[in-house]
């Protein structure tokens, strides 16, 4: 059964069940009637999940008469564009929130809690089923300090994408289960003849902080901060993880500090490396014959485990209604968020290249044959850490520090200890300035 037919069946079944209940009075068309003609502004990124939503959009606009105006920006610009817009009281009606921006947006009062809309029977779809979202994803992407502001929209977990043919040729029937195996067995065996075992995207931007630096903290028992919000980067566990990353560089292509997502994905897609750890969203790029030579050799597994467990990279975006929108825009924006992240649309979103955060979307075991990343993704979302990168308002300042000194560590310009010490001192200075140490702010991350 394809997703379209499955989604239709679910929708029909839901209609049949709800037909006997008071909730049957609610329909998207009726709810949207007062807002027909309303225009809603939102920023999107140039990534598969957004392309999927754009393909679905005509259906929403035809049903509601609401016009969703999308401006596509590079990830690097998305935060700045939104911050300036919110400070200036601009046009954006729906906030696109990376999980590390949620504290910033919530604390500044730029986004509305979803309760404002879920408590309104005219706007709340009875089939919203908030509990159907993976709890980790809902809380990490859309929640801050116990309040849910956004619904998970473009959802990622770090996964191990690998070239099963290269592994097979080297005598491996399965991907590495632990990072130690990568270091001891897979790395040496797969780094030869101009090919490398592993590419870890480490460019000096959010990629360095999220994909490279943090990825080797958590599985080794490390973290950015202690419970008292002091730097934990010089703890034995954090140091072990960061030193491990440094040692692992001998199995990575030269110039790995210049690799962003596109370079890492391309290296695997072109058969230059045997495996990468990348966001689930890149599955469609790696699976497409237009952008990848892997074909049937593409395989996906959860990230390897470290001494402290898997604790894979966690990232993604939620959509939330902006407080600066007027009432009609808020209502129209909410109806769009609710619709595009709905249980009924999750299958279509998946089929078009998106990654929904609905548990029900992955319930059919047959889907794993079509979408090879599903089992690994579902497993990863059971073991993620919400504060993989702290989500407080100070992260934009801290990530810049991590990006600079994390790259310097990898280049050997500073030792791991020195680099961690500098990051720790600078990070604590940012947190002190913000008032975390004098009791002015709750220690939430």
């Amino acid at each position, binding site marked *: 059964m394809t997703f379209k037919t499955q989604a239709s069946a679910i929708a029909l079944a839901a209609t049949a069940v709800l037909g006997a209940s008071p909730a049957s009075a609610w329909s998207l068309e009726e709810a949207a009637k007062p807002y027909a003609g309303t225009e809603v502004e939102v920023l999107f990124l140039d990534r598969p999940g957004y392309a999927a939503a754009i393909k679905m959009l005509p259906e929403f606009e035809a049903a509601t008469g609401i016009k969703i105006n999308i401006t596509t920006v590079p990830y690097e610009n998305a935060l700045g564009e939104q911050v300036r817009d919110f400070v200036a009281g601009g046009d954006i009606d729906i906030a696109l929130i990376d999980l590390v921006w949620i504290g910033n947006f919530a604390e500044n009062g730029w986004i509305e809690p979803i309760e404002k809309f879920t408590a309104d029977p005219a706007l709340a779809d009875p089939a919203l089923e908030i509990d159907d979202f993976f709890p980790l994803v809902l809380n990490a992407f859309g929640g801050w300090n116990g309040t849910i502001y956004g619904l998970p929209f473009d959802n990622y977990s770090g996964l191990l994408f690998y070239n099963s043919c290269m592994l097979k040729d080297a005598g491996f029937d399965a991907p590495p289960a632990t990072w130690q195996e990568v270091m001891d067995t897979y790395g040496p065996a797969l780094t030869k003849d101009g090919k490398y075992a592993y590419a870890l995207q480490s460019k000096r931007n959010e990629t360095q902080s999220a994909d490279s630096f943090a990825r080797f903290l958590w599985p080794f028992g490390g973290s950015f901060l202690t419970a008292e919000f002091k730097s934990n980067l010089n703890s034995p566990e954090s140091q072990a993880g960061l030193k491990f990353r440094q040692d692992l560089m001998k199995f990575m292509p030269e110039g790995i500090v*210049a690799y962003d997502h596109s370079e890492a994905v391309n290296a695997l897609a072109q058969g230059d490396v045997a495996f990468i750890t990348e966001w689930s969203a890149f599955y469609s790029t790696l699976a497409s014959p237009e952008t990848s030579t892997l074909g049937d050799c593409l395989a996906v597994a959860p990230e390897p485990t470290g001494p402290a467990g898997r604790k894979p990279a966690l990232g993604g975006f939620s959509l939330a209604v902006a407080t600066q929108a007027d009432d009609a825009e808020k209502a129209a924006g909410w109806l769009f968020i609710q619709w595009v992240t709905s249980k009924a649309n999750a299958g279509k979103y998946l089929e078009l290249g998106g990654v929904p955060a609905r548990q029900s979307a992955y319930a059919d075991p047959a889907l794993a044959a079509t979408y090879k990343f599903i089992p690994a993704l579902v497993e990863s979302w059971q073991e993620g850490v919400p504060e993989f990168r702290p989500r407080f308002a100070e992260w934009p300042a801290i990530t810049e520090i991590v990006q600079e000194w994390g790259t*310097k560590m990898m280049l050997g310009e500073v030792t791991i200890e020195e680099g961690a010490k500098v990051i720790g001192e600078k990070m604590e200075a940012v947190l002190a300035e913000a008032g975390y140490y004098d009791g002015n702010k709750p220690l939430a991350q």
Partner: protein
Amino acid sequence: MSTRIPRRTIAAFLGPAVFALAVVGIVPLLYALWKSLHYFNLTKLAQSRFVGLDNYAFVLTDWVFWQAMGRTATLFIIAVPVQIALGLVMALVLHRPGLTLWKTLTRLSLVLPMATTYAVVGLLAQVMLNLKYGVINQMLGWIGIDPINFIGDPTNAFLAVILWDIWQWTPFVALVLLAGLSTVPPEIEEAAQLETKSNWTILRHVQLPYLIPSLVAVLILRTADTLKLFDMVFTMTRGGPGAATEFIAVLIERVGNRQFDIGMASAQSIIMLAITIVLARIYLRLFYREVR
């Protein structure tokens, strides 16, 4: 008979230009100056406060700022003399008589690098200098040279930015100097050619004095451009790897647009502006005196 132009007419002609300059240039500058005296972070507006000269004190004692300034100065010291030398050679060649069609085509092609958007120039560099798939490394491979890690190695990345800046701006210098050469009276050049066969002597004693205004213009514009160099570096290396290509404008953008610390970024910008003004005054004093 002399006619005195009424003050009102003068004001009417000058007014729009002064007004535009005030709105576009002076008001934002004053606003930046005012903000530089505040703690003003877009994500922490509730904490905004007047801090006097604290931001300046921080910037002037901040090692990161002076490192970025040092990189910018190094870029300038290496790139601009090379641009002037190459630009002068190109201008002298184009100034020679004959080959009119080829010279016209060359002049047109010289416009291309500087007409290309800075950000696109950086993206071109990123693609062309790619270690694995870049055309430059492919061409080096044809003559037996191993691929060079241009973008991923700190020293190479710095040199690559310098090379790319030279590629983009040498044509500009050549065209400005060519315009300067066209101001040399032909009869003086011809008389000099009768006196000596040495091109160097003609350049030194006849052409160079006429080129001084052009050179001053080139120095002032290239100084300002180098201090403002951002787009190309941002798309090419984003200031990395590490901080190897974090020039002063890249640093200010990072503080202002990524950390949202507008107060600190304003202080950095005002200091940079002061440095630019001082350098411009020095050029004018040193070189223009000769012309006067």
